[in-house]
């Protein structure tokens, strides 16, 4: 884990001054993605390796507590790596993003998935999460999923065949998908728009996650890890932006002003996340409405977080972090994200 963390730090440091700022930004973003894809694949392989050897009664969080704890640890590493770069890569690998990071509700809309453990149907990091935390699924999540067509309750593998399918099917598919993303990304030469999507996409991710938290549909819903995902999204956005910062600052007074707005926005959002301990989103207040939240609801921990994220990601407000990032895109002549 320490090695992975230092790799992230290395990859997120802006390239040295020998490269012109635009090329520095694009190549830095590419290296950031590459480092996180390597971390992602390593974590997926470690999770698969930690899955207990198949035996007659499968495995569970009681009789195989150590192995399950180890798998959960690798799952968290995997999430951190993925969420730091998802904003940049999801659009490039939509099919792999769906199979590696798809949600149960999306998967079963296509077809019911009666076999939770194989590498078909509902697959990926959330399919693994649904099994690893199957004994602790929040009530709101169960209530939401029970209404889905072909709902299959989550559980640990109970037989040798199911345990084998988990290790050689579901976990192996996750490894293969992560490896495929890394292999396909490695030779790519990004352009400024694709690189800057790392910043913009990471911000968009946060807004969506919080809204879904109100209905039991949140992304890492079984492990209650969605706030940690959002922190990783923000860390990713900051890391990508760090590569663009020298380019922004090279634009004189306008660049310095835009940079200050962006940094202020990042600080404000980091501060909002720091108010909440743990990995889970705060509890959603009774009667919450995204469209017309009451003052009392907005004063709750969930309401305060919702307000902070909405303010940061509102592209219609020039004073928001998202607005400041679009000013940067305009300044750098990145038309995909210009105002």
């Amino acid at each position, binding site marked *: 884990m320490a090695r992975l963390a230092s790799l992230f730090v290395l990859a997120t440091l802006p*390239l*040295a001054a*020998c*490269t012109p700022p635009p*090329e*520095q930004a694009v*190549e830095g973003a*590419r*290296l950031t993605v590459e480092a996180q894809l390597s971390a992602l694949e390593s974590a997926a392989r470690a999770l698969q390796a930690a899955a207990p050897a198949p035996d007659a009664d499968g495995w569970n969080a009681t009789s195989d507590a150590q192995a399950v704890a180890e798998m959960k640890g690798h799952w968290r590493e995997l999430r951190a790596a993925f969420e730091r770069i998802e904003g940049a890569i999801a*659009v*490039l690998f*939509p*099919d792999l993003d769906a199979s590696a990071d798809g949600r149960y509700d999306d998967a079963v809309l296509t077809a019911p998935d009666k076999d939770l453990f194989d590498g078909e149907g509902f697959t990926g990091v959330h399919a693994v999460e649904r099994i690893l935390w199957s004994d602790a699924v929040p009530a709101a999540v169960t209530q939401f999923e029970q209404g889905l067509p072909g709902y299959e309750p989550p559980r640990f593998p109970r037989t040798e065949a199911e345990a084998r399918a988990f290790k050689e099917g579901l976990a192996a598919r996750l490894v293969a998908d992560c490896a*495929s993303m890394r*292999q*396909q990304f490695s*030779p*790519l*030469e*990004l*352009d400024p*728009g*694709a690189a800057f999507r790392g910043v913009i996409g990471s911000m968009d991710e946060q807004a969506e996650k919080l809204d879904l938290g109100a209905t039991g549909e949140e992304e890492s819903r079984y492990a209650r890890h969605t706030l940690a995902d959002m922190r990783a999204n923000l860390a990713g956005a900051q890391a990508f932006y760090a590569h663009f910062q020298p380019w922004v600052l090279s634009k004189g007074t306008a660049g310095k002003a835009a940079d200050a707005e962006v940094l202020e926005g990042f600080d404000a959002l980091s501060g909002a996340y720091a108010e909440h301990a743990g990995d889970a989103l705060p509890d959603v207040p009774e009667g919450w409405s995204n469209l017309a939240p009451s003052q009392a609801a907005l004063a709750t921990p969930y309401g305060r977080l919702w307000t902070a994220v909405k303010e940061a990601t509102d592209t219609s407000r020039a004073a928001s972090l998202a607005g400041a990032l679009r000013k940067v895109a305009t300044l750098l002549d990145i*038309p*995909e994200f210009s105002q």
Partner: protein
Amino acid sequence: MRRTACCALAAAALSACGAQPSPGGEDAGTAAFIAFKRDFADFLQWEPFHVEGAADHGGVHFAGARTVYVNQRPPAGSTEWPLGTVLVKAMDDRTVAPGTGEPPPIFAMAKRGGGFNASGARGWEWFGLVMGTDGQPLIEWRGLGPPAGETYGATQQTCNGCHAGAGEDAVMSVKLSDVAR
């Protein structure tokens, strides 16, 4: 890290290229052509294939004269379009689409390979383009189809819905058998 080493590393990194189109239409393994904005630049200069008076396809491709621009012809005898092929379909009148008051959409398809779109038009990635103020196309959306909420014709048709079963390696307006000679 010393400056010379830094420069060498950066130069080496910057010299890496995107996956190059390979001949023969191979679509196996992980080889993939992932297109970026630069891959659509100056598409109006590519070889044009004019389609006169084409019918309205459910409001997706508007009725009227249009042109398909192809970045490279397939090698003679090809049975599939090669990896790296890009086709852009644009109405000849790109000012206003009928009944919309807006420019008609510009669509593109790129032969990506690498197992992409395995259950649809195998190997093809779909794109929606818009023209930027500099006259160059920007990628508005990309992937297995348009994103949710994207206006895409009057019906529920999808890119794969029509193209996947069309034969000729999923390209409908330009016949592979005519150009791979």
